[in-house]
């Protein structure tokens, strides 16, 4: 060793040795203190709390625990530096099994570890990183766990120190064992464990309930927004159509009106998304075959656009022939497909060999599937969409169905409602969703209850000429002035005599005095009685009164209840001239 550089290196090594020595000394002092506690503590239940006090500073933990392994594979807290951690029951998965087998571990993010997933939310949040060490005694297996609320908190040095301290904890376990106190404590633990299990189940139920409530609240919010937007959009969608019917429009004005019309329709589509999120929205269901819906979707402009956006992705369909039918909303099924395929395309977009497979088959479910403790045993049609993307983390999996929870780059794609729409639509269809994350991609399996009815024939599209009326009297009941104006204008164009009132109460008075051939009835009117109540009162005066329900948003129970009383078709606002004409004609021709 001759150069100054080598001398400097030797100096560095010397300094490092000095630092190590100082650390060793500090650790040795803490270990000695720990040994003193082991020797002098007479109340054995005080052993661990005292040891935790000594270890807290050198190990830098927030909370320390000793978990005792039980025969059924679960672990219960034998000791803890914080009382609330004593209530939790732990499950043993790969990590704990490995640790109980003798391998310590340092966890930088507990949210990715299965052992943490069943714990109550507050404990999970307060234990984002952890050190785990096995404790060895002759008879029992246990784990010594240090946790911290910050992720990636523990360093290699902490790990090294924890290994040394775990020897002390093992000694404490031995003392309890040899004094026969362990069995006594364990009896108490069994009772605690049962309580903890119950608490765990309760916490899990509460978590699910909270999630359901959150989704419901967001659904209501979305529905409310959609309802208001719909009213605003009605003018935007309705008036251009009326104006475009004028023959003396200049080309420039026609272009401008068509642009407004197009923008209005696109805005309506966005509102339609929101309405799908809003639970309970009336969406007509009919007998459908999922294979046909998939084929239609693959030919649709939306899917063609997706193919153009992601030319590197290979889409494959595997549709089982003879697939059973489902009772479903065609609109919802198309939205489910569109959103899941968009999502899958996002997941594989960086993969030069990106593959997305759409598969259907009929299955019989007789056992629970992931995420559902109880399922209705029976026949289901399964739609499976599989990608070979990067997969979904367990953390994301918990939240992917929440509105606006998105990993996509904002502005590039998605409104953050895609998977929420899927979730809500599946609730509407009383189906189940099983998301299977894997190393080689993700699969979404959707289960729809089978419907034994045969396919209903498609409603034929009719021309405006076929919808024309012959002077029948129609009363429009709507609290929105724009809506009344547009509806009356459409109906007059269609050859009907149209009148309008702004509330249910006025409608009832009107009907009492003047019979009409048909009511075009809004469902939510503020203030005053709603569409259902209006119809109920009307039929007391005019039994068998014909009616078409038109609404942007309503509770499906109200629509269904009115229909049970005799009301006819439901059409969603904003509607086109053709849709209104067809619904009115159909009802009058009954």
């Amino acid at each position, binding site marked *: 060793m001759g150069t100054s*550089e080598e001398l400097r290196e030797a100096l560095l090594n010397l300094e490092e040795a000095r630092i190590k020595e100082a650390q060793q000394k500090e650790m040795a002092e803490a270990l000695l203190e720990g040994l003193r506690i082991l020797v002098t503590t007479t109340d054995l239940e005080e052993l661990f709390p005292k040891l935790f006090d000594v270890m807290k500073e050198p190990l830098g933990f927030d909370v320390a625990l000793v978990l005792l392994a039980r025969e059924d594979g679960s672990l219960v807290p034998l000791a803890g530096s914080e009382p609330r951690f004593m209530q939790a029951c732990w499950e043993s998965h790969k990590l704990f099994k490995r640790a109980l087998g003798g391998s310590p571990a340092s*966890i930088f993010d507990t949210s*990715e570890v299965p052992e943490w997933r069943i714990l109550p939310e507050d404990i999970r949040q307060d234990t984002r990183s952890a050190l785990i060490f096995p404790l060895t005694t002759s008879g029992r297996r246990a784990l010594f766990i240090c946790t911290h609320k910050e992720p*990636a908190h523990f360093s*290699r040095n902490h790990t*090294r120190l924890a290994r040394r301290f775990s020897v002390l904890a093992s000694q404490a376990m031995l003392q309890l064992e040899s004094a026969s106190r362990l069995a006594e404590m364990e009896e108490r633990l069994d009772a605690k464990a049962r309580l903890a299990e119950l608490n765990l189940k309760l916490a899990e139920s509460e978590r699910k309930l909270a999630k359901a409530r959150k989704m419901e609240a967001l659904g209501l919010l979305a529905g409310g927004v959609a309802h208001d937007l719909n009213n605003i959009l009605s003018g935007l969608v309705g008036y251009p159509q009326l104006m475009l019917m004028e023959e003396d429009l200049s080309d420039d004005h026609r272009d401008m009106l068509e642009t407004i019309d197009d923008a209005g329709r696109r805005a309506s589509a966005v509102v339609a998304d929101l309405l799908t999120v809003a639970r309970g929205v009336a969406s007509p269901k009919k007998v459908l075959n999922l294979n046909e819906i998939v084929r239609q979707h693959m030919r649709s402009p939306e899917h063609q656009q997706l193919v153009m956006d992601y030319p590197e992705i290979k889409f494959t369909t595997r549709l089982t022939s003879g697939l059973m039918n489902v009772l479903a909303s065609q609109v919802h099924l198309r939205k489910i497909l569109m959103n899941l395929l968009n999502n899958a395309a996002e997941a594989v977009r*960086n993969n030069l060999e990106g593959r997305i497979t759409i598969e259907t088959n009929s299955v019989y479910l007789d056992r629970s599937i992931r995420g559902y403790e109880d399922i209705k045993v029976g026949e289901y049609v399964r739609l499976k969409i599989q990608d070979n993307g*990067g*997969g979904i983390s367990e953390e994301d999996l918990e939240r992917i169905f929440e509105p606006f929870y998105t990993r996509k780059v904002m502005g590039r794609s998605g409104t953050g409602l895609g998977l929420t729409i899927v979730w809500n639509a599946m609730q509407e269809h009383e189906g189940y969703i099983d998301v299977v994350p894997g190393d080689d991609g993700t699969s979404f399996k959707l289960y729809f209850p089978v419907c034994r009815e045969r396919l209903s024939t498609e409603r034929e599209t009719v021309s405006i000429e076929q919808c024309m009326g012959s002077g029948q009297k129609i009363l429009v009941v709507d609290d929105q002035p724009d809506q009344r104006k547009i509806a009356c204008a459409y109906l007059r164009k269609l050859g009907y005599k149209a009148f309008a009132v702004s509330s249910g109460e006025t409608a009832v008075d009107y009907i009492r005095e003047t019979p009409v051939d048909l009511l075009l009835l809004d469902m939510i009117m503020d203030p005053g009685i709603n569409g259902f109540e209006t119809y109920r009162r009307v039929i007391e005066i005019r039994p068998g009164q014909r009616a078409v329900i038109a609404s942007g948003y309503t509770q499906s129970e109200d629509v269904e209840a009115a229909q049970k009383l005799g009301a006819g078709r439901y059409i969603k606002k904003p509607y086109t001239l053709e849709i209104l004409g067809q619904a009115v004609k159909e009802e009058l021709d009954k």
Partner: protein
Amino acid sequence: MKTATGWSVNSNGEQAIDEAVARLQKGLDGADPGIILLHASPKYDNARVLARLGERLPGVPVHGGTTCFGVLTSDGVHIEDGRGLGLMALSDPDGDYGVGFCEAKGDPGRAAQVALKQALAAADRPGEAPTVILISSYPGCEEDVIHALEEVVGLGVPIIGGTSADNDMSGQWLQFGNQELSADAVSIAVLFPLCEIGYAFHGSYDYTEHRGRVTRATGRIIHEIDNRPAAQVYNEWTGGMIVDSLPNGGSLVPAASFSPLGTEVGRVNEVPYFRLSYPVEVTDDESLLLFTNVSEGQEIVLMTGNEDSLASRAGRVASVAIEAADFGAEEVQGALILFCTGCMLTIQDRLEEPVAELNSALKGVPFLTTFTLGEQGCFIGGENRHANLMVAALVFGPINV
């Protein structure tokens, strides 16, 4: 823990793999490899090299990248006609290993985090801090990669690796991850061996009295030191060494190999230790282009070294790694050494010396040395850094009971 190495200088990549695997398997003596580290010259058709390795050792995770010329092992120097490849296997039935690979596409930090997640999933240890992370990346992205990894796992995991190199700085470098390879990807290996490890990261240079503050810089270019053109200041510090490059700019490789710039990373009490930056070029505005990022306000120091020190360097860094570990030299099972390409080129006629030094320090156990365009390692104070002209050593010790 069992380690073994294999090498070849066969000009046919597939035959080279066959030869290297045969040597590797002999060393493994029937043990199954948990992970393979592959470093091969860019002169090979490395897609075929990887494919052949996959055929010979199916299902074993592969991590690595290209090396300048070839490799060193305990058997000697494996370079012939600018070509050579080496394999290192870690075998540890109860350990876990995983490799992830992601093309950067302009965002190496994201790629590093994606690859890390893949690697942890492959090792079946999601959320768990590995004993050590190995990285293989491309020139210019190293700091981003280290930062992104530390964002996820924290500061407590040593990150060790090398910037994949080619033979002539023409951009032929590649990173390997399982069966994938790319010129702008990040390959990550996570190791969860049952054994203890030791590591060290040192430059073979001493500091001088010449020091100044960077007053204007952009990325990897120093425009001014103490408000004067950087190349002029560097020329003065080195006694006029680059005077010929001053008027119109030009390459400083290998002229600057013994006169890199250092940045103090930390001090152990009062003794400083440095990250080295290689000044590779004088630009036409008298700025200096480095191989590491530099920031304004940073103090830089002229470092100095010599051939003898470079030749003995790898062995000494390996010894330091052993001294830093909780085991003795007799217990070492194997080692991975990342050695600066610039240093290797300076002593390329003396490469038998580092082999001898390493064999002496490591008591003859298997080791693999690869030559890199930048080194990443963990300093004495625990800081993970990217630097130039360095040697990074990772030694594997006995099974930890």
